[in-house]
Each structure stands twice: as C-alpha cells, then as structure tokens.
C-alpha cells in the first residue's frame, strides 16, 4: 500500500527524521493562509499523487513569490497529473504540499527495501541523490548493505555506510540516528519500501529528508489499523478499486483484450499468448487458483466496466475446480451486461461438458477453445473482424 509524500513525511517525523517545514492544501480557501506562513524566499509546491516522475511532469514547482505560489497551487489542485508512471489518465491531485525552500549543499539517495535474494532488509545508499539516481550511469553508484535481522541496524553498520559515503565525522551522528530510526520505522510498520530521495545536507549543515516514498505490506495491514486510514482510494482507477473490493489481483494495461484467468502465472502466460497472437491485453486479472462462481462473476464485472475492452478471453484451468461453477459465474455476470463483446472461453476440469452446454444454452455467441494459444488467437481474430466490419 502506497501512501502520499506528506503522509510519509509525517511517519518520518514520528521517527525523528527531519523533514522540511511545510503544510498541506486541500481546498482553494487554504491557499493564501498556507502560503503566507512560508518564511523562506522560495517555496516548493508539490502535487500529492501516488506516482514517481512528478518533477519532470510539472507536479513539483519552485516559486519565489506569493503570486507564483497561488498560480501554481491553483493550477495543480483538482487537476490530474500525468507522469511517466501514471498512464495516460493520470492521477487526481487532491492535495498539494507547500514546503519552505532548503539550501541544498549535497544530495544523497537512501532507501530500505526487502532483499529477496539475501532474505533480509537491505539498505541502499548513493551519493547520486535527487533525480540523478534515475540516470543509467549512476545505477552502479548505489551501495547495498544487507541487514542481519538478528543484529539489526547497529552503530557499526551505520558507520560503515558513513565511511563508504566519505562523510565527514561530524555528520556521522546524524546519519547513524537516521539509519537506525529508518530501520525501526521499516520493521515496526511492515514496510516493503522506504525511500528518501534526496536526503540532503543543507548549507546550514542540517540533514533533511526532502522527499519520501513508503510502501507497506498489504498482507500485514491487519496489524496496522492506523496505516489503513492513510489509504487514498482516489489514487486508484475504478477497476483497481473494484478488484480490491472483490479481493482479486488486477493490473490495468494498455490494450483492448480483457483477460480473466485463474492463477497469476497462468494469467501472465495468457497475456503473453495474446501478445504473441498479435493482440494487446487490457489487463492482468487473476481470480484465484480455485476460481469460484463469485470471483468469476466479479472479474467479468470489472472487464465489462472497462470502456477500452473490445473482447474477453476467459481462461480457467479447472483441475480441482468444477467447470460448471465457473460457468455459473460467467452467466451471472453476462446476464447483467448490455455490451455485446466477443467472448472466447477456455475451460479445463471436471464437468467441462456440462459447463459448455449450459453456456451455449445461455448464449450461442460464446466460443470455446481447447487450449490457451488457440484461445488467444481466436479472440484476436474476432476483434479484428469486428474492426473491419
């Protein structure tokens, strides 16, 4: 679960990591009031959306006058920000963070993340902070430290980092404290990622987290009710929200063919097969290894709600699952729909014949195939036919 920058900064403050002085604007009425409190010559206006690449997309603006500030906030608030990570629709800007300017002396990159290969939490740091870190030539400058879970972020681990970054001795205490607090923040909140980029030294010698990103483990939210409150549904598409509500795995893609599959690996393989057949999948949708009537019906609801979807491919490898149950889900969902989309179905498992019989009885337009590749080819063909018609 991602949270907004301003929320992440509140978390950092709970853990005694300094952030710039700032305030949030969610309504036009607050603009003047907040901007007038800024005590530095410049202020930074930051659109609060769940996406990286804000800077390059105009979502972060440095202003030097009240007038510029008002203009910038008004432009952002209530609009949508399109970055290289949001997709074409962009993300709604419901809040703008206004922060006092900071005199940056030096920028660093700082992150804690789960390291799957060493099975521990790893610290990533680099002297190439800020937007530099995304440049390919700096990828190698990132240093990685695996933290032994039984030992934790001890002084000697943090000192190693300070040495490797060639920090001056006087800066060590601030770094040791920051790294230890950050590690505690990570473990106590079941985080998957905490990224501070840049972590800067100001010309006045202070260490400040200028930007912060946090991602928490959805599977652990049950033990963090306070984190659940930070969730911002508006940053998700309607399809994503529906999927979350239905407890299905869904990812929106750029194509036109809606896929409904049971199992994540098979769903990816299905997307790949569609692409291989010359089509473009509109989504990843996993209704769970053991597809049920309800999960299938809910999944189809999501696909039919998506206006980009021009055809649907249902691929369920029943195995233990009973195909008639899946068929019931399909019928339940299609009964409600008015859209006439080509639907190709591939079913494997018990009661396959009964299922196909029931589906055919429900609608003669449903088509059946025997394997994944054939199904992918057929749905691509049907969509192309309609386009030509």
């Amino acid at each position, binding site marked *: 679960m991602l949270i907004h920058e301003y929320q992440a900064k509140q978390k950092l403050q709970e853990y005694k990591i300094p952030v710039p002085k700032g305030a949030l604007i969610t309504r036009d009425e607050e603009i003047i009031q907040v901007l007038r409190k800024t005590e530095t010559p410049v202020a930074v206006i930051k659109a609060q959306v769940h996406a990286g690449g804000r800077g390059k997309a105009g979502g972060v603006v440095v202003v030097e006058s009240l007038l510029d500030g008002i203009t910038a906030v008004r432009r952002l608030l209530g609009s949508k920000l399109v970055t290289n*990570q949001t997709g074409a629709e962009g993300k709604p800007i419901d809040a703008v963070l206004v922060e006092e300017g900071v005199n940056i002396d030096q920028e660093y990159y700082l992150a804690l993340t*789960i390291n*799957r*290969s060493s*099975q*521990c*939490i790893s610290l990533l740091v680099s002297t190439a902070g800020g937007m530099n870190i995304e440049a390919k030539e700096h*990828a190698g400058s990132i240093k990685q430290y695996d933290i032994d*879970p*039984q030992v934790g972020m001890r002084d000697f681990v943090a000192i190693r980092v300070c040495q490797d970054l060639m920090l001056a001795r006087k800066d060590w205490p601030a770094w040791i404290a920051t790294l230890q607090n950050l590690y505690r923040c990570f*473990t106590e909140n*079941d985080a*998957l990622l905490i990224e501070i980029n840049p972590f800067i030294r100001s010309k006045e010698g202070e260490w400040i987290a200028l930007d912060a990103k946090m991602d928490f*483990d*959805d*599977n*652990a939210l*049950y*033990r963090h009710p306070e984190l659940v409150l930070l969730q911002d549904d508006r940053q998700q598409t309607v399809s994503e929200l529906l999927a979350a509500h239905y407890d299905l*795995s869904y*990812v929106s*893609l750029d194509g036109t063919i809606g896929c409904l*599959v*049971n*199992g*994540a*690996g*098979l*769903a*990816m*393989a299905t*997307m*790949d*097969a*569609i*692409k*291989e057949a010359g089509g473009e*999948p509109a989504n*990843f949708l*996993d209704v769970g*290894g*053991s597809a049920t009537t309800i999960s299938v019906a809910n999944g189809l609801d999501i696909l039919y709600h998506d206006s980009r979807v021009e055809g649907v491919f249902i691929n369920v*490898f*029943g*195995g*233990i699952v009973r195909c008639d149950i899946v068929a019931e889900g399909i019928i339940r969902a299609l009964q409600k729909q008015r859209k006439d989309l080509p639907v190709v179905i591939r079913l*494997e*498992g018990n009661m396959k014949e009964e299922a196909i019989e029931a589906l055919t009885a429900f609608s003669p337009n449903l088509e059946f195939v025997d*394997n*994944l*590749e054939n199904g992918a080819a057929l749905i691509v063909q049907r969509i192309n036919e309609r386009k030509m018609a």
Partner: protein
Amino acid sequence: MSIWIDKNSRILVQGMTGKYGQYHTRMMLEYGSNIVAGVTPGKGGEKVLGVPVFDRVEEAVAQTGANVSIILVPARFAESAIFEAALSDVPLVVCITEHIPIQDMLRIMAYLKDRPVRLLGPNCPGLITPGECKVGIMPGPVHIPGPVGVVSRSGTLTYEVARSLTNANCGQSTVVGIGGDPIHGTNFIDVLSAFEEDPKTELLVLLGEIGGDDEEKAGAWLKANSSKPAIAFIAGQTAPAGKRMGHAGAVIRGGKGTATSKIESLRDCGVHVVSKIADIGPLAVKILGK
C-alpha cells in the same frame, strides 16, 4: 524414484478441520496420499475424514511418525504453524498459505537457516509424485508417472504444463511448486539439485516468471552442475515494470527481473526456452528420444 515424497511419506495436515483444509485433505486422500494426522488447536481427539486430529504438531509427530507437513491455515496463523512444524522436527514443511506478511517470512527464514528443515512455499501449490503421493492442491489427474522433473514458481500454469507433458505421454517424476512469494524457502536450485541426484529424472522443466533473479541463478547452476537436459518457460513477457502481477514476487523493479533477461540468460546456459506452453510436451518427447 522421485524426490522428497513417495508412497511411504507420512503426511500431517496443519489446519485440517477448516473448510479449505478438509477439502484438500479429501482430495489428497482420494489421490492416495498417506495422511496420518491433522492438527487444529482445540480439536485434538476428533477424527476428520477418518484421520485423527491433534492439538499440537509435536504430539501428532510423536504418535503418528508424520514426516511431511502441509500447512493450510489462514495467513495470520501461518508463521506460528511453520515454527511449530520446524520445532517439532518435521523434515519437510509445505506451506500452501498465501498472503503471509513478508516480515513473518524474514523471521522464519532467519530461524530455519542452518536447521535441518526444508520449507516449500509459502503461496505454492505443493508437490506431487504422480501415482504415489500428492502433498498439495494441484489436480491429480493431469499427472502421470515418468521421467520429467518439473519445478515452478506458479500454480495453475504448472498444471497446464503437466497436462502438456501428460498429453504427450511424458510422465513426471515429481512436480514441485516453489511458490510466488519473494521470500520463500526452497528455491529452484534446491529442487534442481534433488532432480540431478534422482536417477529416475531424465529431463528438467523449469517454469519461471518475472521478478527477482532466481531463474538466472538456476540457469547458471544448471550450466555448471547439471548432466540433464532442461526446458524452460518464463511467464510475463508483456508485464509492465513496477507492477505486481498477482504474485507478490512477480514484479520488475529498476529494470531487473524482466522475462527477456531471464530467457536470454537461460538460453546462454544451454536451456531450451520455449515461448508457448503447448510446445513443452512435444519438445520433451523429442529430447527424450521417444
């Protein structure tokens, strides 16, 4: 021959009395698996599907000689269930449960390190030695005994591949699902090593997906250590970067873990990488020279 489980395996089901647990217990029993005990705290002394239920794993092991445990408990009880199995010296623990918090898994893996317990999973379909024993939730009938060892990060995709092999009349020695979570116990190399030592296994099939670098490591291992031919399929060629594709572990991060990189890397190591699942069966036939 096969790896890890066979008709003599004595299976314990943690979380047997719940709806999900009972369903899969019945399926395993129907397949012929030798289920000797179930464990559900507070239900000790009952019998479910003819199998005795215990309150604790230690008791169950002491009284039934169970040597494989399959965990079918809800996610928030899974950490404790794995610890319990490990502390009770069950040598093979198969955790089907999905949605276990990552920090729980970090604690478990730190604990299991250097201990004589093999954890398979979590968030995996389990494993099956066709015709002998099924410790998992995969459909039994798509498998037949034979010389192909299958290892996979996926569930239903694996069934699909098993069917492709079975349709081509290529049976399987053992089919192992290692699971889709980023932090998991048994990895590709553990399974491939076991297949390498299993005289019955003549051909390896590896099913990977985007995320991490386990496939790349497996390729390097195969090149250096394996005497047996290998086929691989990687799911997620069309997956966008930065998005989790269902499995918590299936995500491309910082340009790493793409299907392309895995495919190229496996090819460089001499593995036959196919782009269609349906090709696996025929290719296996060809390699085995049937």
